[in-house]
């Protein structure tokens, strides 16, 4: 059993909107081990990005982390002072956002953005920072002369590599990646994934990988957690989640992806629409769309049950 690097206990994140309070993350508990890749899958509104941002305490008003703890190596991130938080961020945890064009400053060169990060956290000279920046670019497979380029001069794949390089700048133990390849073409995505495999082997960091693409997660993650409407509804070993899912939502999600090589049959996905967090149904959040819905499902919210060692699902049918 790997020692847990990050432990999240009963985390709740609320959004206060003019129309009411939406609970984006509801009582989620999970752990990430050292060197592990944990995938969080779900669709829009399920709370996966909210969960990820909570770890680095990136939420501003009107979002609020109302309950729970996030233990990084035993220390509660939510109780950290501003100074401790500053040391924590980027040294221990860094974030790769979905669209590189959104996270790179369009009017500053790549080199400056890299050196800015290094200089903000380490007491080194500008020359040393630049040398480190060149090293980082090499690690992600980009030539050093790209230091002078602006983001718009690079292709989408190259920009994403730069963002990964920035995330690696201080050699963190945990990198949170929020849909890092969704905006990229499949060939470029494959190149980035290859890069990630190499980097993981070399540096041994943990990854919290967020995506809606279950096949991608089935490939790169060690364990997968599936979220729906703020709840963690299935959590366990990646291969099992993908090949023998327990929760009806997970089953529906997996059958929403037509395969290239499988038999050509009609698939049905999941009927209905993703849930509105401001008007959640009574009982299980998934019951309006569930084919196996029972009477109990409309009244009681299912809790996460231990189905086997290190495998949980939240469903009344189990």
């Amino acid at each position: 059993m790997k020692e847990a690097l990050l432990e999240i206990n009963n985390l709740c994140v609320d959004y206060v909107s003019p129309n009411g309070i939406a609970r984006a993350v509801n009582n989620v508990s999970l752990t990430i081990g050292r060197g592990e890749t944990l995938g969080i899958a779900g669709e829009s509104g399920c709370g996966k990005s909210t969960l990820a941002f909570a770890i680095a305490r990136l939420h501003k008003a009107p979002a609020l982390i109302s309950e729970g703890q996030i233990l990084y190596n035993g220390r509660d991130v939510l109780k950290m002072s501003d100074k401790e938080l500053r040391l924590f961020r980027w040294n221990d945890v860094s974030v790769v956002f979905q669209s590189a064009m959104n996270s790179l400053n369009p009017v500053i060169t790549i080199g400056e953005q890299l050196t800015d990060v290094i200089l903000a956290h380490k007491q080194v000279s500008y020359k040393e920072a630049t040398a480190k920046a060149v090293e980082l670019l090499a690690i992600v497979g980009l030539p050093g002369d790209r230091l002078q380029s602006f983001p718009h001069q690079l292709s989408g794949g190259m920009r994403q590599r730069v963002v990964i390089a920035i995330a690696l700048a201080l050699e963190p133990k945990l990198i949170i990646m929020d849909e890092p390849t969704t905006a990229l073409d499949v060939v470029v995505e494959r190149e980035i994934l290859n890069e990630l495999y190499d980097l993981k082997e070399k540096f041994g960091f943990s990854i919290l990988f967020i995506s809606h693409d279950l096949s991608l997660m089935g490939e790169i993650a060690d364990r997968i957690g599936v979220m729906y409407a703020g709840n963690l509804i299935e959590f366990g070993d990646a291969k099992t989640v993908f090949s023998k899912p327990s929760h009806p939502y997970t089953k529906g999600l997996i059958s929403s992806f037509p395969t290239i090589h499988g038999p050509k049959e009609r698939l049905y996905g999941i009927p209905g629409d993703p849930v509105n967090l401001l008007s959640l149904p009574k009982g299980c959040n998934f019951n309006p769309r569930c084919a196996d819905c029972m009477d109990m499902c409309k009244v009681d919210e299912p809790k996460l049950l231990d189905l086997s060692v290190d495998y949980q699902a939240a469903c009344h049918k189990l």
Partner: protein
Amino acid sequence: MGTNNTPEVVLSVKNLIKDFPIGQSNNKKNFMRAVNDVSFDLRKGEALAIVGESGSGKSTGARILTRIYDKTGGDITFKGQPLQEFVEEHGTLEYARQVQMIFQDPFGSLNPVHDIYHHIARPLLIHKRGDKETIKKLVYELLELVGLFPAVETAEKYPHQLSGGQRQRVAIARALAVDPEVILADEPISMLDVSVRLGILNLMADLKDKHGISFMYITHDIATARYFAEKTAVMYVGHMVEWGASDSVTQTPQHPYTQLLLSAVPEAGKSGRRDLGAKKGEIPLWKPTSKGCPFATRCPRVLDKCSDSFPAITKVADEHFIRCHNI
């Protein structure tokens, strides 16, 4: 003309070329070639998937067919008549009625200040489909046809009150309102939630099978292309490199680019580094003066003559063609 087995051709494109100017419109005119020598047929009640990455020119083709852009070269034939002739004889409105388009962004395809009723009634009004009572009935029928129940309630809503999937259904209803022959769908599901995508694809499949509408399905996802369309064509930098029956193209791809695409797709359980065999080359910006095969810079099977001429069409199987010098 169709035989007993093959449906008749509704829309036929031969050697289509489209150039765009780059740089200032007044200064030295430099052109880039977005579509080069592309040919395909759309048959009645059949779907053709155009698969390609960004920059492959797939969307440009659709926009030429809906006359948003003018073609630079090649021939387009609609129902046996050259496009220009058809438009002159029947009018632009009639062509617009028969060839409709659905867009990628469900948030952008509906005007936020108008309610759903307005969106679907407008095309009916423009094409004079009847008086107010008839149109009202048609609107509700269309909403039910695309699976939006209850129709009356949905018609009163505004776009921001609907989910992405529902908006896309409204867009389909709007396209259907005028009884089109052809629907061009430009990445209709890529911005939707995963669980909703199949609902839309199944809806389009039903419209294709039950109403005989021809579809051109543009996508970057070859798996959904195989799922939905009978025929698939693969495009790279404005060139069509492989096409034919979807099963044949996706199960036994012959062109090195198609093989590259298929080997790059993530597969659960197949963890670990996957070298694709493609060289690290630049994706070229194609110009009217460019020569040869656009994939030459990255092709693992490249030959000398690949930089000289774009390959001719080779038939590799029944209903399966590629353009490659090195088969």
